[in-house]
């Protein structure tokens, strides 16, 4: 048995025999109250509880560990391998069997519970001991497989693969499966396909009232129409802007680049909020129009126009980011070739440039489409009677008419839409992108745009940029006036309410926003490194290791790109509200939600970073007798630092701005900034909301600038640094940026 395997086994015994098996509330290193319940009470270890007869169903798990321990000193590799595989696999099987069979009273799987000796019993959610034991069993299984020669016999590789699969299984597939399950059962929990069909075909989802009569259309149609419009408009704006910047002498490149950073650091509903302050019934512009031109105040903003406007403003920079890459990727030589063959400017554009742009445009459209589908904040703030899937899901869960089944069905519809778009993108566009950037130098000069295209572009862009600038001015100014649109008296009142600090008696964070702010920073700071770690490990496995099921794993991680935050939030609250994993209301669930919501970002930047590192470096390390872990630690990781940093920053920032997933998961104790701000908006306290938003934006802008400075100064000539703008653009694939 290898030393690493012995270590894993010891850890397993630690989890099984010493650590508290179940989740203990209020447990901490400073609070020792739980010791009273140790080891035979609530905080007992599995071994103590099982031997004292309280939880006999935990005994088999210990037997699995004991079986492995018998082979502690064995030299027979094949026998040990067999024992490890069987003990690990059966141990995990029994672990999950008891965890799902015996949950709350009268729930779970009765016959299995009886079989395991726990008929009628109940147990709480698993805690540290159980989790550590599970990991140990998993690693024992993986080590056994490695002994058998899987993955060239590398313990580290098999263990990592096992870990990633387990985590994705528990925290992505299990919750989504729970959603499907809740959609298929009726209010009493009995399986009922008819209930599903009835809910699914409900006219509130698919109704065509807006066409046939004067009522509202189904929420699915609303969402689709909004998403298509948003996709088309953001793409056009992005394209016009990319062409103008790259193909004309128009100034303002730097400003446009800066604009693209804004949506990354802006919480998604803030644009909507600013729009209310400008164009709402009491908004600044509405008031001006009313006072000067007698234009009556109206509620036009609340509904499709407002939501669309907010989404376009929020997501157009993303389209721009994608399309500027595509336009840059078109080799100028191709256009020069066309011109030397006698084509006019317009002909060149039509026959060469445009066909090469097409795949990128389709990509950008799909991105805007998915972003709009997944957007939650803007429809919540501006929707009015115009309901979309994400808000409807929210109200089905938190509203007065709590309806878990309906939420599940709506989530399935939304998931089907985003997965569909994602599938189209992968299947149809996957092999259609023309890479015209080769390794060879290209001395050609880009062809200037035909004049009519230039004018058209300018006409589109100027209002957009102007509006964006105004919006951000509103966001910054809004916090410093008493009531935007009505009373422009400068005041610090909003900031004082939120962020006052009382120095009279030490430092006391008095403001109402501090608690959620600190929680947010803490949760983001904990989840960011975990996200980066899991993401980069997954990227490493996907790009550098060959193993059976690799494409399945790749598909699974890609799938998680397409899951909208709202769906994940609902899934988490349905899945983790009851044992075996009972973590709702804790800070832990927020961390986990962020980690698995942002994991694709880590995977993306990991894959991007790894693809820049020549594979022969790994191989050189291997031929010099280094194992996978050594290679990863000594060669890959140091070279991956830029990707690591960008993954860290990005997941940190996204954790701070996310709304959709976490709004279901916050609790009074663990409230997050964005949830707090949404609450203030709903209460009509726009001043405080906007003040808090600008604090967040400035905080994150400073953070990004700081990190960019830090990364920029790193030495080492040959290695290319990934500029933040592009690495941040990388992860902006379907469903990710929407939060």
């Amino acid at each position, binding site marked *: 048995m290898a030393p690493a395997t012995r270590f894993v086994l010891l850890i397993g015994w630690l989890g099984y025999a010493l650590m508290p098996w179940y989740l203990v509330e209020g447990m901490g290193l400073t609070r020792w109250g739980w010791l009273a319940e140790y080891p035979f009470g609530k905080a007992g270890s599995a071994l103590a509880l099982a031997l004292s007869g309280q939880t006999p169903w935990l005994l088999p798990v210990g037997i699995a560990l004991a079986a492995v321990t018998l082979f502690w000193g064995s030299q027979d590799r094949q026998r040990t391998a067999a024992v490890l595989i069987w003990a690990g696999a059966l141990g995990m099987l029994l672990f999950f069997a008891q965890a799902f069979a015996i949950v709350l009273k009268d729930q779970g799987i009765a016959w299995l519970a009886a079989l395991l000796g726990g008929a009628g019993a109940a147990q709480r959610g698993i805690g540290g001991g159980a989790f550590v034991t599970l990991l140990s069993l998993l690693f024992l299984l993986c080590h056994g497989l490695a002994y058998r*020669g899987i993955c*060239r*016999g*590398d313990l580290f590789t098999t263990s990592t693969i096992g870990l990633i699969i387990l985590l994705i299984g528990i925290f992505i597939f299990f919750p989504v499966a729970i959603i499907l399950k809740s959609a298929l059962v009726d209010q009493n929990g009995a399986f009922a396909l008819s209930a599903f069909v009835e809910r699914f075909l409900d006219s509130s989802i698919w109704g065509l009232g807006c066409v046939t009569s004067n009522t509202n259309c189904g929420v699915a149609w609303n969402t689709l129409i909004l998403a298509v419009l948003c996709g088309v408009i953001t793409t056009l704006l992005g394209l016009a802007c990319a062409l103008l910047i790259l193909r004309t002498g128009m100034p303002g490149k730097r400003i446009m680049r800066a604009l693209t950073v804004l949506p990354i650091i802006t919480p998604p509903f803030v644009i909507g909020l600013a729009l209310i302050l400008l164009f709402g019934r009491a908004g600044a512009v509405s008031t001006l129009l009313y006072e000067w031109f007698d234009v009556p105040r109206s509620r036009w903003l609340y509904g499709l126009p407002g939501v669309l406007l907010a989404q376009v403003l929020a997501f157009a920079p993303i389209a721009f980011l994608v399309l500027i890459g595509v336009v840059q990727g078109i080799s100028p030589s191709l256009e020069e070739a066309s011109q030397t063959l006698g084509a006019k400017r317009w002909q060149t554009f039509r026959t060469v440039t445009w066909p090469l742009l097409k795949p990128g445009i389709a990509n950008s459209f799909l991105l805007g489409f998915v972003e709009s589908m997944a957007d939650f904040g803007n429809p919540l703030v501006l929707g009015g009677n115009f309901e979309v899937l994400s808000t409807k899901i929210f109200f089905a869960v938190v509203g007065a008419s709590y309806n878990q089944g309906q939420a599940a069905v709506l989530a399935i519809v939304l998931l089907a839409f985003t997965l569909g778009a994602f599938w189209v993108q992968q299947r149809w566009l996957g092999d259609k992108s023309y890479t015209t950037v080769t390794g060879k130098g290209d001395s050609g000069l880009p062809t200037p745009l035909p004049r009519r295209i230039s004018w058209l572009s300018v006409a589109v862009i100027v209002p957009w940029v102007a509006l964006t600038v105004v919006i951000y001015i509103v966001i910054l100014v809004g916090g410093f006036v008493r009531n935007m649109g009505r009373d422009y008296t400068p005041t610090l009142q909003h900031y004082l309410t939120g962020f006052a600090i009382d120095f009279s008696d030490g430092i006391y964070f008095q403001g109402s926003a501090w608690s959620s702010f600190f929680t947010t920073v803490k949760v983001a700071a904990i989840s960011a490194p975990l996200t980066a770690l899991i993401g980069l490990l997954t990227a490493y496995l996907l790009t550098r290791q060959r193993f059976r099921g690799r494409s399945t794993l790749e598909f699974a991680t890609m799938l998680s790109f397409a899951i909208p935050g709202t769906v994940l939030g609902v899934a988490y609250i349905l899945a983790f509200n009851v044992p075996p994993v009972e973590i709702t209301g804790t800070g832990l669930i927020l961390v986990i939600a962020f980690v698995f919501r942002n994991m694709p970002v880590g995977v993306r930047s990991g894959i991007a970073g790894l693809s820049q590192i*020549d594979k*022969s*470096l790994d*191989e*050189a*390390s*291997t*031929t*010099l*007798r*280094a*194992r996978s872990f*050594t290679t990863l630690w*000594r*060669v890959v990781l*140091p*070279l991956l630092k830029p990707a690591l940093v960008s993954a860290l920053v990005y997941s940190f920032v996204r954790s701070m701005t996310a709304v959709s997933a976490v709004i279901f998961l916050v609790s009074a104790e663990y409230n997050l900034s964005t949830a707090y701000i949404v609450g203030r908006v709903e209460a009509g306290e726009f001043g405080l909301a906007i003040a808090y938003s600008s604090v967040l934006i400035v905080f994150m802008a400073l953070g990004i600038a700081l990190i960019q400075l830090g990364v920029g100064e790193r030495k*080492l*000539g*040959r*290695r290319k640094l990934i500029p933040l703008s592009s690495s941040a653009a990388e992860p902006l694939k379907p469903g990710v940026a929407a939060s």
Partner: protein
Amino acid sequence: MKAGPASVEFRNVSMRYGAVTAVDDVSFTIEAGKLVTLLGPSGCGKTTTLRMIAGLEIASEGQILIGGKDVTKLSAADRDVSMVFQSYALFPHMSVLENAAYGPTVKGLGKEQAKQMALEKLALVGLKGFESRYPSELSGGQQQRVAVARALVLEPQVLLFDEPLSNLDAKLRRRVREEIRELQQDLNLTVAYVTHDQEEALAVSDRIIVMSNARIAQEGAPRDLYEQPANAFVADFIGDANLIDVTVKAVADGRADVGIGSATVSLPARGLGTGPAKVAIRPEALLLGAAGQAGALPGTIRKCAYLGNHLDIMVETEVGELFVVQYGVRDLLEQGAPVAVSFAKSGVTLIPPL
């Protein structure tokens, strides 16, 4: 302390990627202490073969033995084999010394010992004084030496080179290949060397294995391959050759009377019987003389190019265009001038028709 050089043996080894067969049923032996080149055009499977020796690819079928021990399923980290990569694969974030000391360091030898071993091998390749530089601060040739030193540090049983000279300019190439050969002979190393450059292969090898389409086309000493090519592919790939369809008229005492157009030449039969065959004629084995010479092929000059120490000449004859090289200073030949083409004693080889 080390086992010294070891032999490498392939027994019916194949490598398949899905439907593609990269190496097809290949068997050969590299004797301990020899430098053997795997030579062939790109895509012939030579690099895959090398990577299978290293353990970077695990063979689909067959057996691989190093030093008589079966290593077929052993991972690269468990084989006593080092490799010099085409791109050198120097770790850009480590200094020259750290690169060279990487092997002993990850093996868990002490820092001091690792450093000593690295310094020794760096001195051996002539890089004393460059220890603290980074790879990006070295020239291509220096980087290549670091790669060699790094591979040598663990004194592997087998050393592999994957096109080590392809990133160097022509002049440097000649020098470095001689250094590699000297190093191999001085340290008595077993070396497998991949290249697509036949001149490089001829210059450094004890033996050459020519590969074509995932199989071995011929193996042997450099001279055997040049003078006794087994088939048209080898004749054409190693050096230049005019390949001409001929008829063997009669065979007697191991010699064949071969009709090349209107001329008849007596060549070693190499086991061939009467009937259609091919000859491979080296360009320098064709002699040009005054038109009308008896027993020679009549021809006409098509092109004649001056290349310093020799002339490249194309001659149109009844058996097709022939490529002729003439050494020594001569006057350029007029285009369209009539000549007679005769054959030298060596450099004309009978090969099977296909």
